[in-house]
């Protein structure tokens, strides 16, 4: 059996696909996905920012090569790690994925993997395997379709291909990364980082997660990707470009991450982000929010430390002062609470909770 490098060397990018005949099973699938794409374009969850969309589309195009005109990137406002690609070329990239990757190369690893499924036409094989109605519903979920079947499950877009398909997509993705000039070594880091979050969950056991049920074990995946990276050294990560590209959206994505209420995963994510960028006020604020909302023993002290670090870094979100005020108020540190709330109201006078915060300021005067 050939090793991953030999298999990769033997693989050639296919020519662009013609639209299948409408009467064929593949043609029917394309038509269904076309309808989903129309719905996706109108969805309130669609992130319609021309600049960001063009940026991510450009990365996808660099990977897809001559297939670029057939790959249509749609950004979706959903705070989970996911990307998917339908057989008609509709690619979804969720905001939770964009929050998690650290550079262009890591995003390219996931997009390249999805394009790998597309180029390998793995969905067609899956379709022909999905004989029963329930299997067909699960099959549709593979593409993160706009309808609820594809959205309700965590990682819904990623756990229905076979392990062989996943291995092939990893290999194709790494090949596309190399051709596009990206560091293949970043591909292994994506899975390492995701594993860190999953292991931080209260249930702790990554092997019980559905994401790993059909994917190759993370360790195997990392090993194979690392081996491929060794054989393809060099390339760029483009960390700075990525950070600048997503900067306008980072605060909203962090807010949505905190709102998920998966505190342990969020702390694991933010620990990693802060290690990479210790002076980023938004990350410190977000970690403070997670600690404050989790409120386990010692968490409120940690939250105060994070909020103060965010303020020291400068450019902190107004909510930093609100969070501090809430903790000081609960601890009956009235002068500190009043000062924090007043600062919050100065920075965010139109905040939706301003009436409540003003009532706290009044209460703290007495």
């Amino acid at each position, binding site marked *: 059996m050939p090793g991953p490098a030999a298999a990769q060397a033997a693989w050639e990018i296919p020519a662009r696909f013609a639209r299948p005949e409408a009467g064929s099973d593949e043609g029917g699938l394309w038509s269904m996905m076309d309808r989903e794409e129309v719905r996706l374009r*109108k969805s*309130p969850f669609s992130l319609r920012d021309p600049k960001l969309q063009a940026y991510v589309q450009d990365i996808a195009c660099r990977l897809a090569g001559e297939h670029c005109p057939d790959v249509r990137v749609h950004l979706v406002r959903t705070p989970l790690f996911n990307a998917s690609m339908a057989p008609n070329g509709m690619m979804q990239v969720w905001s939770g994925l964009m929050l998690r990757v650290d550079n262009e190369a890591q995003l390219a690893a996931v997009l390249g993997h999805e394009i790998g499924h597309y180029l390998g036409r793995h969905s067609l094989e899956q379709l022909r395997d999905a004989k029963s109605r329930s299997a067909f*519903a699960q099959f549709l979920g593979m593409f993160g379709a706009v309808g*609820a*079947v594809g*959205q309700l499950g965590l990682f819904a877009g990623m756990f229905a291909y076979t392990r062989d398909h996943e291995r092939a997509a990893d290999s194709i993705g790494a090949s596309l990364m190399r051709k596009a000039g990206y560091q293949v070594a970043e591909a292994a880091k994506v899975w390492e980082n995701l594993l860190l979050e999953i292991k931080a969950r209260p249930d702790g056991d990554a092997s019980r997660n559905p994401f790993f049920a059909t994917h190759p074990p993370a360790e195997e995946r990392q090993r194979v990707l690392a081996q491929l990276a060794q054989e393809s050294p060099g390339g760029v990560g483009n960390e700075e470009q990525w950070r600048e590209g997503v900067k306008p959206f980072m605060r909203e994505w962090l807010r949505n991450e905190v709102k*998920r209420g998966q505190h342990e995963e969020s702390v694991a994510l933010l620990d990693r982000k802060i290690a990479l960028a210790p002076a980023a006020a938004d990350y410190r604020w977000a970690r403070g929010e997670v600690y404050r909302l989790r409120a386990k023993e010692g968490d409120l002290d940690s939250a105060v430390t994070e909020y103060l670090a965010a303020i020291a870094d400068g450019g902190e979100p107004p909510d930093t002062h609100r969070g501090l005020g809430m903790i000081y108020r609960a601890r009956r540190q009235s002068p500190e609470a009043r000062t924090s709330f007043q600062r919050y109201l100065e920075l965010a006078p139109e905040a939706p*909770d301003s009436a*409540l915060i003003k009532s706290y300021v009044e209460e703290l005067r007495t």
Partner: protein
Amino acid sequence: MRTLPMALLVFLLAGCAGVAKVESGERGLGERMLVSLDGPWNKVSAPDRGPAEVWTMEGRPVDELLIYSGIKNEQVIHATAAGANRKNFAFRSGMQPDEIVAMFEGMLTRDGSTFKLVKLAPADFGGAKGFRFEYSLTRKVDNVQLSGLGFGTVSGGELFALLYQAPRLAFFPRHQPRVEQMARSARIKT
């Protein structure tokens, strides 16, 4: 076969079982809350909403009034499924209004819906100091934009709250005055 009709069907089936009319007049909600109704409602059996009593004017999933009466410390405020991966949201007696609203937000967005707080202000509720909040919700299952209104207070360490949500066009403004009246009439026995 389409994905959306399948999902809606599940949603509709979940909401259509067991309907009873709630007549106008004074009504007890749980052991400690009383409200005065100026018109009838429909009470539906909704196990998916956990400890909340669920009323509706138009029928679910169009609109719903969630009534939380006497939720205890560490009690989860929604239905839970064994082995489910999703986060559970529980009330804690020491929660402040913003934390209670965040808890409701978490509960309402467990399915991937998006919540936006529009207003949160102090307000009397049930004869005690409490809070009132307004929100918008984009429902994941069908992308419908809802408006929502909530009232709450903590009494004796227990949570009492009303949440009403309906499509922002037509349905929400049609029934909002009735919900506001009901909230004003609420009384909590100490």
